[in-house]
Structures are given as C-alpha cells and as structure tokens.
C-alpha cells in the first residue's frame, strides 16, 4: 500500500475523501450567501424611494464592504465547485475538460479582482 502511494507520508491520491472538503465548502458558502441575500432582499423590498445616497451609504460602511467581499469570494468558490461538476459530468474529452476548468478559474479570479475594485470604489 505504502509503496503505491509514495507521494508523501500522508497523501492518498484516490478516494472519496477529497470531495468532502469541496462539498462542505459549498454548503458553508451557501449559508453565508443566504444571510447576505436576506439582508439585501429586505433592504430592496422595504426601500421606499431608491437614492444613490442610501444605496452608497450601505456600501460605504467598512463592515459591509468586508461582509460583501467575504460573501462574493464564497460565491466564487461555490461557483467553482458547481461549474467544475458540470464540466466533469458532461465533457468527456480530458483536454477540453481541462481547458474549460482552466478558463473557469481565470474567469472567477478576474471576477474576484473586479469585485474588490467595485467595493472599494464607493
């Protein structure tokens, strides 16, 4: 057994074990997004007249910027797990699958950088 897995002392390259981390991360990020959504949805549905001042004031608070950033980063990780599942389920060709996964990571990294810029522009 040990001779077959000589990539490190504790590392096994096979087994369902490796999916647990992503599965759990998808759930944890989902809960963060639920809380964030309920706050924003409440703000949106109860707002009487939308003004820039009110909207920007919410996002100008440091705690809300950080909460937004954490939620968005969680969202991107959540998206990574979900979209990777889609590529793994439907794309049979290993080369195309790898290219799509690579493109997804780049796409999400770009979105994350843009999110930082947006949140700290107000």
């Amino acid at each position, binding site marked *: 057994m040990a001779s077959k897995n000589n990539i490190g002392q504790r590392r096994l390259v096979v087994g369902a074990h490796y999916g647990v981390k992503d599965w759990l991360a998808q759930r944890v990020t989902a809960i963060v997004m639920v809380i964030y959504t309920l706050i924003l949805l409440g703000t949106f549905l109860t707002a009487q007249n939308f003004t820039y001042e009110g909207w920007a004031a919410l996002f100008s608070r440091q705690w809300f910027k950080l909460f937004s950033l954490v939620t968005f980063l969680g969202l991107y990780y959540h998206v990574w797990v979900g979209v990777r599942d889609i590529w793994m389920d439907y794309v049979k060709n290993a080369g195309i699958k790898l290219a799509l996964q690579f493109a997804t990571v780049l796409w999400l990294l770009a979105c994350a950088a*843009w999110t930082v810029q947006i949140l700290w522009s*107000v």
Partner: protein
Amino acid sequence: MSEAVKEATKKGRPEFRNIHITDITTKYKMPPSAIVSILHRISGFGIFLMLPFLLYLLQESLRSEISYYHFGGIVDNAFTKIILLGLIWAYAHHFTAGVRHLFMDNHMALDKDAAQKTARWVLVVSLVLTALCGLKLFGVF
C-alpha cells in the same frame, strides 16, 4: 479475468451506460424533484455566465452619482428588465432549491413523498419570490 467471465462478455450482454438526454426528455417521467434538480443546475450555470453583467451593474450603481443615473438608464430598458427578471428567477430558484438541499443534508424530508412535496414548494416559492422582486423592479410598490 476468469474464462467464464470472458465467455459471458463475448455473448453480448446488455451494456448499461449513462442515460442519454433523449431518454430523459421522451421516455422518462420527470417528478418534481428531478425538475428542481436540473433547474438548479441550469440556473446556477446561467448566473455564472452572467456574472460580468451583474458586476457591471453593481459597479455602475455604486461608483458615483453620475454612474448611478447611467445604471438607472440601463435598468429602465424593457429588454434589460426581462433579462433581469430571468436572472432574478434563476437566483430565487437556486436559492430555494439550495435551502431544500441544506435541510436534506440534515436528514430532513428524505422519504419519497416528503421530497416531492418540498420540490413542489421550491417551484412555487421561487416563482412567488420572482414575482415579488419583479413587481418591485417594475415599480408597482
């Protein structure tokens, strides 16, 4: 592989591969849970593809007072509103179906009848949420 197994393979035993999309759409009955499941995937993928558009809207709504009016102009367009309504439905569906998932992860409503019942509720609640946000979006209340 033993000889007996090799012989059996040669006789052309039926092979059961993954179900093809045409089997699902024509032969199989889709229970509410199956509809919720595939819509969960489609809605998630749709939001993923539209992320740059949504980030662009967020940027325009926040950057300055001038960009806020620009944002208002984009959102006022009927075509944009239809796209936004579609995205709101996608979010509402993904959200409610996700909450259902979280309950099922904790071993709630796992039996056949309960699972179909909650799946129907997901379809209803997501449409109600979409209607609520849609009415707000079109300025009804």
